[in-house]
Every structure is written in C-alpha cells, then in structure tokens.
C-alpha cells in the first residue's frame, strides 16, 4: 500500500540551462548518467526514499527548466520547498555569474528557512574549468550556502549533495528551528514511526525457529 517513511521533504533543483540539473537528479534516482539529456520542459519530477541519520526520508524533487522562457512557470514551484540544489557548471563562468539571480529568486519565493546547497557540477571536466573551487566556496560562505562540487557523469558527490541537504533539514527539525507542521514548510510526516515494530516481530519468529531445531 502506501510508502513508508518518517518525513517527506520537498526539494528543488535550480540553476541555469545546461548545468546538468536533470542529470544530477537522474544520477541520484537511477544511479546512472543520463546520456541523451535534453532541455527540460517546465518542471520535471522525481522521488527517492533515503536513509538519513536513522530516519527514512522521502525526497520529492522538482527539477526545473533552466531556460529563461520557463522562468515564470518554474517560479510557481518554489513555494513550499524545504531544500534546494543550486547548480552551476564549473566549466561555464556564465552559469556561475547568474547564481545571484537564482539565489534571489529562491530567497524571495521559497520559505525563508529553505536549505540551499550550491553544486558546482561537471567536476569530471576539470580541464575546462572556468570557476575555481576556492572562488565558489567563498561565494557559498558569503551567502550561507553549503557547497560541493559534483559530477553527474561519475556520480561523485551527487548522493552527498542531496543527503547533506536532507541532513541539515533534519537537524533543524530536531533543534526546533523548523516546524514540520507549519504550512509551506515543505516537510510532511510519514507514518513509518508507527510501523517500525513490524521488523522485530519477523526476526523474533526466526529465532524461535532456530531454537526449536
């Protein structure tokens, strides 16, 4: 029947066109590189249940189109997001330069508590690098973002990016900084906590059998 999880987090993936947002999502969900990726039309959707700090969290991820013409459509998805991956391409300074625009959008349209992680994608193309790690991490620090360099091709840091973001949100929930019950928080409770006892019962009957042997 319905899926089992403790929390559901709504995530966004934003950033300029061609930075590899859809590939990051594909790598995260399918565990492989999306070969024939095209420009995203509007907003695409993906989800995966992950384990973070002993909790099962379902990530509901909205992968937005980077092209300017879709900006008005994609903006309507910002509200109620708990976390966001802000993606640029390390081989394209232009995509790095537009980060402030994306950041402004996210800060103004999404919840003020939104947790944003900056992802410098296409790490595998180090030879063509136009944005240094140091520069970007300074930008991240100034804007209170977490930062990782990722590669949707090799999968390096992809999982980490999503999990790191989820972990921070969980921490904020634990510390009371975030209230999942509040509307527009982008967080929902699942009913997994009610079901956790199912597992021990199974193991119990197994041990019983072993004893009787």
């Amino acid at each position, binding site marked *: *029947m*319905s899926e089992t999880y403790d929390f559901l987090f709504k995530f966004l993936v934003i950033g300029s066109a061609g930075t590899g947002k859809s590939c990051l999502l594909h790598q995260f969900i*399918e565990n492989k590189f999306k*070969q*024939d990726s*095209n*420009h995203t*039309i*509007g*907003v*695409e*959707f993906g989800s995966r249940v992950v384990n973070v700090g002993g909790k099962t969290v379902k990530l*509901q991820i*909205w992968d937005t189109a980077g092209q300017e*013409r*879709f900006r*008005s*459509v994609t*903006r*309507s*998805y910002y*509200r*109620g997001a708990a976390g966001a991956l802000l993606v640029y391409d390390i081989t394209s300074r232009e995509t790095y330069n537009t980060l402030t625009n994306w950041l402004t959008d996210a800060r103004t349209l999404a919840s003020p508590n939104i947790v944003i992680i900056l992802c410098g994608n296409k790490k595998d193309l180090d030879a063509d690098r136009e944005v240094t790690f140091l520069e970007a991490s300074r930008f991240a620090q100034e804007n209170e973002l977490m930062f990782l360099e990722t590669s949707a091709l090799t999968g390096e840091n992809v999982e980490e990016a999503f999990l790191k973001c989820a972990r921070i949100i969980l921490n904020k929930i634990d510390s009371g900084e975030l209230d999942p019950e509040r*509307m527009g928080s982008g967080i*929902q*409770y*699942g*009913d997994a*906590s*009610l*079901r956790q*006892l*199912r597992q021990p*019962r199974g193991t119990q009957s197994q041990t019983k059998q072993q004893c009787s042997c």
Partner: protein
Amino acid sequence: MERAMEQLNRLSRSLRRARTVDLPEDNETAVYTLMPMVMADQHRSVSELLSNSKFDVNYAFGRVKRSLLHIAANCGSVECLVLLLKKGANPNYQDISGCTPLHLAARNGQKKCMSKLLEYSADVNICNNEGLTAIHWLAVNGRTELLHDLVQHVSNVDVEDTMGQTALHVACQNGHKTTVLCLLDSGADINRPNVSGATPLYFACSHGQRDTAQILLSRGAKYLPDKNGVTPLDLCVQGGYGETCEILIQHHPRLFQTVIQMTQNEDLRENMLRQVLEHLSQQSESQYLKILTSLAEVATTNGHKLLSLSSSYEAQMKSLLRIVRMFCHVFRLGPSSPTNGNDMGYNGNKTPRSQAFKGCWLPQIKGLAVQFLMEPLELLWHSLDEWLALIATELTKNRSDSSSSIASLLLIQKGASQQDPASPCPSDVIGAESSGELAATPRESLSHELVEKPDAGADGEDVISVTANRLSAVIQAFYMCCSCQMPLGMTSPRFIEFVCKHDDVLKCFVTRNPKIIFDHFHFLLECPELMSRFMHIIKAQPFKERCEWFYEHLLAGQPDSDMVHRPVSESDILLVHRDSIFRSSCEVVFKSNCQKLKQGIAVRFHGEEGMGQGVVREWFDILSNEIINPDYALFTQSADGTTFQPNSNSSVNPDHLNYFRFAGEILGLALYHRQLVNIYFTRSFYKHILGIPVNYQDVASIDPEYAKNLQWILDNDISDLGLELTFSVETDVFGAMEEVPLKPGGSSILVTQENKAEYVQLVTELRMTRAIQPQINGFLQGFHMFIPPSLIQLFDEYELELLLSGMPEIDVQDWIKNTEYTSGYERDDPVIQWFWEVVQELTQEERVLLLQFVTGSSRVPHGGFAYIMGGSGLQNFTIAAVAYTLNLLPTSSTCINMLKLPEYPSKEILKDRLLVALRCGSYGYTMA
C-alpha cells in the same frame, strides 16, 4: 429420524399405559430411544431406562458421531448431563469435527452445563479439528459471563486455531467489547498476529468495530500491518469506517496524513474514502479545515506532477481529479457546528448538501478561512496560468517567427519520452515516428542544430500536443474548485475571467484535439456564455461522442448516478388507466416530483400486474400516440403525412397550454431515460426545441405550395413584377381573415428586391413560430424540466429526431428497387453500382444520414420506399448525374428527393466524398 419417531411413539404408548419400557438391547436402537428424552431433559425417564441396561453411555451415533453427553450439553439438559456424567460419560469425548460437549455448551451458551462439565474435569484446552477451543466459541458469540468462569481453567488464553487466531481475534472481529476486556484482563496477547500477520486491532478495524478498536488502542495495542503490508487504517478506509478511522487517528495522529495521502491511491474505493473524510470533517471545525488544507496540498502536488511531462498522464490526471472531487465534496459539507453536531454523525443517510446547513456556515468561513483553505491550490492555479501564458507567447511567436526553439525542443522531448529509458539507441524508436529529421540526427548534436530545422507550422501544434491534455485536466480541476465555492448552478466569475483570458490557447487546444472538450471541458455545459465560444468545434464532433457527453452530464447531477433505475417505492409508481391514458398520465405526472422521475420511472396500468422496463416502454409508446391524437387538437399533421407540429388552433382545447407542457415533460422524460417515443415532429419543430431559428425551407413541410412561392421570390428579380407585397400577411383565424403586420408598420412597407430576404424570413417566422409561440413555450417549459437547454443544443434537428424517436430500420433492397435515375444515369452504370455497394457498406446511422441528406427525413414511410413523399405527392428517390470535377461533393434537392451524384472515377472516391457530404450536410444547408 424415522426410527426415533417410532421409538418415541412406542415410548409414549407405554407411558400412557403407565408401564416402564425396557431399553432395547442394541446401542444404536437404544440411543434413539434416549435422545428425545435427553433433549427434553427428562432425566427421570432416562435414569430409569439406564438403571438396568448395558447401554454404553459413550456410544457415538449419527453422522457427526456424537454421544448423548454432546446432546445434553448442546441442548442445555443439565440434569441429564449430570446423570450421564455420573454414569461415566466421557466429558472430553470428541465428535467427528473434534468438538467436545464443552465446545457445544460454550457455543450455545449453556452456562449450567458448562460449569457441570468443568466440575467433572472437562478439558478446556481441547481444540476441535479447526483448532477452536471453548473460549473461541464463547468469544465468537460474546458470552462474557461464561468466559469469566471458563477462563480461570484455561492454561493458555492465547491458544490459536488453525489460522493462528486466538479468542481475542474473534472477539475483536465481532466487536464484543466486554469479551475483549475479559480476555485482555485474563492476559491475552493484545498484539498477537495470526498466520497472515493480522492482529486483534487489525480485525477490529477490518470490521469497523470502533469501540473494540478504542479498547485495544487505549490498552496499548500496537499499530501493525499484516504480512502483505495492509494496515488497520487501510482496512478502515476500504470499509468506509469513519468512526474507527477517527479512533485510530486519535491514538496515532500521524495517520491523518496517511488518510489524506490515500486519496492518491489508484486502486482506492473512492466512495469509501469519501465517507471516511466526510465523517472526520464533521468532528470539529478545526478538523474540517485541516482536512481541506491537506487535501489542497496533495492536490497541488499531484497537479504539479501532472504538469511534469514525464509523468503518466492517465494516472496523474485521474489522481488529481479524484483528490479535487473529494476536496470539493468535503468543502461543500461545511464544518459541523455544536448545534447540529449530533444529527450530522456518521450514519450513512444524511444529506450532505442540505441547503439550510450550508446557509449557516458559508458566510462564517467565507472571508479569511476560504482564502486560507485554498492557498495551497493557488500555487497550482498560478502554475496553470503561467503555463497557459507561456504557450500563448509561443503561439504568437510561432505565428510571426517561423523558427521557434521551444517547439523543436518539445519535439525532441516528445521523441525522448517515447523511448524506453533502458533502450540504448533512441534513434531507432524515434525513427519509427513521424519526425524524420530527428531520426536522422546523431544523438550528440540533438541540442542546437535542430533548432533551426523543423518546419514551423507543425511545431506550434506540437507545443500543444504534449501539454494540452495535462493543462486541460488542471483546468477541469480549477473549474471544480471554483464551482464548489459558488451556489449550485452558478459559474464562478473568476473562472469565466480565466477562460476569457486564455481564450486563444484553449481554442487552440480543442481545435487540435477536440476530445479534450469531452474529457475535460465539462464546464462548457454549465456556462452557456463560455459554451458559445466552443460550439462550432463541438458540433463538428461525431454524434456518438456528443451523445455520450450529453448523457454523462445529464445524469451527473443525480445523487446515485451509478444506479440508473433504482427500485421505486410503492407511492412513486405512476398508476395510469389504459382507457384514459392521456388524462390519467397527465394527472400522475403533474403530481409527481421531477427529481423522483429523474431517478427512475415505474408505471403500472390500472388493474394490471405488470411493471418494469417493458411496461415503461409500452407507456411511452401508447402515450406518444395519444399526444398526437387529432381529438386533442394539440398537434397537426404536416403535408408529408408522417410528421407533426403544434396546432396553431389548439386553443379550442381550453387547457391546451398545460397539455403542451405535459407533452414536453413526456418527451423530456423519455429522452432522459433513453426511451423512444412514437412521434416524429416537423423539422421546424425540432428546431424550436433546440432554439434554432427556422428558415423558409422549413415551410415546405407544412405548406409546400407556399414554400415554392417563397423560393420563387428569392430566386427571381421581383423589382418589375408589381407584386404589391407589403410586410404583412392575412391569416385565417377560425374563418375570419385578419391582417397581421410582420413588423411595426409593416402594412405600409413594400417588399422590394433589396428587402425580400427579410420578408421571407419574417413571413417564415410568422407562420412557423409566432403562430404557435404559446404552444412552443408550453412544450419547452415541460421539456426543460428534464433536459437543460444548454445540453440539448449539442445536437441539430436531425440528431434530435434520432435521440427522441430512434433509428429507423432501412431496407436497402427496397430502397434500390424504388429508386429512379435521371440526367444520364442508368441503373447499370458503374457509378450507380458503386453507389449501392457503398450504401451496403454504410452503418445504419450513416444510411439514415444519407436518407436525411436526400429526403430531409430520417424515416421511410409505411409501405417502404415506394411511398416516399415529395413536395407535391409521391416522389421516388432519384439519383441524378453531375459532371465530375476534382473534390466535388454530392448535393441534394430534398423537396424532390433527388441526390445529385457526380460521376466519380472510382468507388473509393465516391465513398469518401459521400461520407464527407453526409457529415457536413447536416450542418451547413445550402440550397441546391
């Protein structure tokens, strides 16, 4: 049994003679002597008989191999039971199904027998063949008092039957509260799973045992799914047990979200979940608001998923609409207020749309709260708006600039989404599709080279084809949400504004894919002002589709639209007299409630038994014949002798307007219930029903001569003829000639070559409409009680006839036999041969269209094609040759029943052109 009776007789005879009988020697005979006595607990007689006999008290007899002790325990014959036990009967003797006397005593609640059996150390732990023990039996029937006595003797209160079920399971399933408490107090395992993993709580929930669930939860029962992952909540929702759900949520607040999330399940029983939500929403105002907000959030997420092009359109669309339906349903209920909280409780028979109730809450929450409720959905509507705006921009860009990159992007996207993600070579898959350029392009260069390539005309269409369905479904959801905030029958101004704003895009959607109208644009049927914008597209759709849409919407307002003909209560049966069918039907129909008649009709003829659909059909048939009975002077026959229209002189019958209303009601009712009537009206009257203006050709059906004159006026230059016609006519009102002006001051306005068209139109309207306007109005008043004008306008006059009077049978052989050929055609010409071959291949509906196309009537007169009437008497169906030019369509002259068939070069072309003509022919009427 026979033997028992015989024994009994013998016994009673001997008793009467005041002599004791001896027990027969053999056990089998003896046991049948004793059994009736044991059943009646005649312990003295039994004791006497047993005293000197060698009878084996443990003798098992009958099909189930029971002993007399079983019989005693079963019947509660406690004296006999003790006697038998004293005589050494085995208290633990098991019958063929493994039941001991204790089992039977427990099952039947024989308290005394049970305690005696225990005294004689009956074993309480014995299982029967199904694994049931005495406590199972007590638990099944909720015999708590007995259970109290028994449970102290039980070694394991959790003893399982073959299905792993304990007494607690069965007690919970049956909702025996005190039994459950007793078992729990005796140490029963509250979380014990059976073989399929079902716990006591699971059982309580599966049967909606609210109180039992409450007890279990307050005693700390765990919320556990079974081995298939089915949870207690799933079961509650499946069964529509709102109260039990409420208890679960009280103990596990997070289950609330789970219930809300269930709205997304495809395999859900929607009405059950709706019942649950209905119940939950009535608990408190805050609960009501919380449900709506949560539903709004789920709907928004689903709507956004639907707008993601890679999601499944079908599944997401259904999911979104289902959630929004539930949202609207709950919204309309309103929160319960303390005063009516009690009678709004869950009992299945409340009326959710009670107007009084609605009236009292709506104003309260209207302001701030509605805004709050709808807020999550506003995000979705905002996205929808942006999407439509985006498409509008692309469309204009497309029109001005031939190379649009978004269009080609969409083209690529489409190709990509068609291919299996696992498939390594996309070009093969795409190659099979229409887009040739795409297939030829190597994968690496897909992104930019292509942008300039594809031709623009098709691209704009492609933007729409990938998004139109999805956006339209969201529009439908938007309409539903707007409507639920409005009083029934009113369209939200916000929605109207929305449609007007996106007019271009929406028209583009439906022009491209008219199916969208039927799938999602139901709002059109409810708002005439919006409908008119789309009417031309709708009317161009196949009759069948419009028919389905018509009925789908006609019945949608019914509370139980899934049950078409419900059993009707005695008082709702229309009792009519055969000998005064018109008057008696009129009486009962006027007395009946329109809503009830919509739900179903049941007719019974006075003094007859028969009921059911056959009688209803017969009633419509006879009654429709009576309605046109000339004795009532309501309808007159037209010139062709088969069709009818209101009689302008019907006022001879003083109550005539009421009768017209009745006739309208009967026709409306028949259409509503898909019953056919035996009346054919004139083309012009069908137009009146549809609200379509009549034209001069319609006059032909009532006065062919007059129609010819009008035609002549139109066809010829009248300037120099000195007709001296003015805009007035003389009419015959019961013998007296009266001059009636066609427009103000008409008698002094001359008809000239310039204004003759107006004259013809006005004179037509006078003859066809104004003369019978009160009658038409009366008829429509009745008709619209069942058929809203907005719905009937989906059809034209030909189709309305088909709907009301059905499809006539057409005998093609008879048709061929009575057809003439002219202007060069001969019977053996290949074109004629092809023509008839094509006619044979046509569907019945298409043949009717052909007949209508040529003769203006869908029916063959009595006696067949030999009796087809033309403008002036009998006029055979005729086919005339016309020289063929490319794409030329067949035409017809209906007043002389002539088909003008071009000399087509092949059968294929003939068929194709003919079908085109038939499909368009009904709409555009050009005078040939």
